[in-house]
């Protein structure tokens, strides 16, 4: 106990814990056992601080509170992110572990829908079955579906295709791969998107992921009739299946932009703050 409380030992433990706390040295990711070692070191550090002086006890109490709060939030807290495009909803988020590793999908307390995204980065979310509107901005997080949601940042979710129908009931729609929409009097489904379209042995394929020659395979329906056709941005209306009296064209491709939000539930946040405050009071009270 005396040796544990020696200034050099206390300083060495504080230094090691300080290095481990830095996000620039991700020691928790080095080995699964590191977390346990650090927890043990934190416990030893707290024990080493306990002595007969009141300020020192206060520092030990604060450090213990802070360590317990951090450990609780590392083990029982939940944090991660969710990515949504406008109009999209979800009941889950991508959870990350304490070491930053993705843990998979985790359920939210309620469905969340991204209603609106503004140029200044503020987003409006619909929660509690669309009964409550919540604004989340880069400067202000909010409590949604039992979690703190904040830090909205732009995210590219893929590519949107702007399809145009002419030659009769004309119209235009912006669609993702797999989407189905009504354009004019046609029901159009984007079956497959080819960013860099090419054909080899009569088989269409994409030479790369770069949008050098964007094209798409569509399924078009009108009443009982159905057609499959290719639209290529560089050659509008090149493919006109028999019986289809409309011209379909891939007018343009645009990035499908959405928003990624940080999601966190840290039940011991208040306790951690209290711990830091008590340590500060203890250090300030120490012999100067």
């Amino acid at each position: 106990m005396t040796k544990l409380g020696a200034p050099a030992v206390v300083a060495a433990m504080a230094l090691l814990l300080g290095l481990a706390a830095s996000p620039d040295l991700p020691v928790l990711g080095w080995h699964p056992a590191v977390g346990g070692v650090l927890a043990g070191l934190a416990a030893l550090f707290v024990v080493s601080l306990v002595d007969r002086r009141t300020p020192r006890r206060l520092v030990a109490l604060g450090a213990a509170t802070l360590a317990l709060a951090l450990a609780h939030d590392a083990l029982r807290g939940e944090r991660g992110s969710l990515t949504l495009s406008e109009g999209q909803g979800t009941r889950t988020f991508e959870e990350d572990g304490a070491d930053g590793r993705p843990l998979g999908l985790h359920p939210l307390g309620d469905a969340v829908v991204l209603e609106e995204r503004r140029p200044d980065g503020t987003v409006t979310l619909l929660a509690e079955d669309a009964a409550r509107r919540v604004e989340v901005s880069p400067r202000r997080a909010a409590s949604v579906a039992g979690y703190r949601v904040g830090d909205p940042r732009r995210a590219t979710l893929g590519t949107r295709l702007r399809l145009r129908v002419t030659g009769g009931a004309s119209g235009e729609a912006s669609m993702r791969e797999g989407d189905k929409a009504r354009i004019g009097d046609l029901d159009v489904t984007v079956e497959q998107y080819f960013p860099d379209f090419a054909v080899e042995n009569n088989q269409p394929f994409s030479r790369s992921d770069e949008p050098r020659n964007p094209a798409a395979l569509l399924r078009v329906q009108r009443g009982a009739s159905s057609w499959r056709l290719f639209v290529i941005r560089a050659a509008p209306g090149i493919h006109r299946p028999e019986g289809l009296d409309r011209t379909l064209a891939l007018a343009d491709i645009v990035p499908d932009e959405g928003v990624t939000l940080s999601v966190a539930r840290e039940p011991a946040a208040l306790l951690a703050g209290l711990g830091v405050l008590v340590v500060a009071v203890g250090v300030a009270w120490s012999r100067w």
Partner: protein
Amino acid sequence: MVSALPLLAVACGLALSASSVVAAVAAAEGNRRRRQLARTIAIVAAVPLLALVTRPSAQPLVALAVVAALGGPQPLALALAGAAAVLAGLVPMAGVSSLALVLTGAAAALGAHALGRSAWSHLAAGRDGTWTSSVAGAGTCGLVLAVSGNDILRWDYVFASTRGRVDAGDAGLVLALALLSALGGALLLGADALAATDATVASPLARRLGRCALLLAAGFALIAAGLVLRVTGGPDGPPLSGARHAAALVAAAGLIACTVPALLAEGACGDALEEEQQATLLSRLVVVVTLLAVLAAGVEGWRRAGTYLTPLTQRLLSAALVGFAASETTRLRTLARALTLGALAVALLA
């Protein structure tokens, strides 16, 4: 008025650096009037910086410069205050106010005072200042390398920004000369310190050459700062990385300038015990202020990002723990205080 502010801040930064040199000379000579002069220059140079508090991104740097100036004529703290003032004037105007970062700036200033006093207590105890100057030279090498990267090997300085890539051979040449001078000075003084056994000075020639090389490096670093500003500055001022490069070079020059006067003096003046006691007191204060910054960062993180465990909170917690180690230990105190200052600088600039 708005466009004059950066210029004013740079001028204040240079004045703070000058006050650091005056403070270092005064401390080496034990001249109270010069110490008072250094203090007056520092406070007069820090006051105009308060005009920058309307810029959120400049607030932590202004806090650092003002607290360092008010804390007394401590050469290291004033040298860093000079660099902070230059950076405060050049950082982009946009940003979000953060009490946590302002407290971090104040803690960094107190940390610089603690480190400076700790180093000075070694000199006042009769130890030679060769090591201190050698470390300052090594620090300058590190800062010059951080600014120039690998391009210095081609005697070039390349600056890449959103406006494009700019090659500046003249800045590269001066940076390389600064690096070579600082390296030469650090090695000569380090070798002299290692060779010294009974006699304080092993080789007066090596000592004189090392000192000259370091002074040359300080001059080159200042010239390089000007050239870097010319290269990186556009109509709206330099981008953040360019501003940081210039401030790092001002810090490098200040670092050397505040350690060399101790080499010129016959023996450092001052009470070693009093300096160390002051340093210990300041170390505790650094921990308290850093813990308050941790608290503020946690609250800000919870309100803004939804989590209290933001990278800033973690960096500050790390700095508080390292600072606690520095206030506890009786061995390697100066090194621990330098680590604390480094951790606070990372939290402030990351």
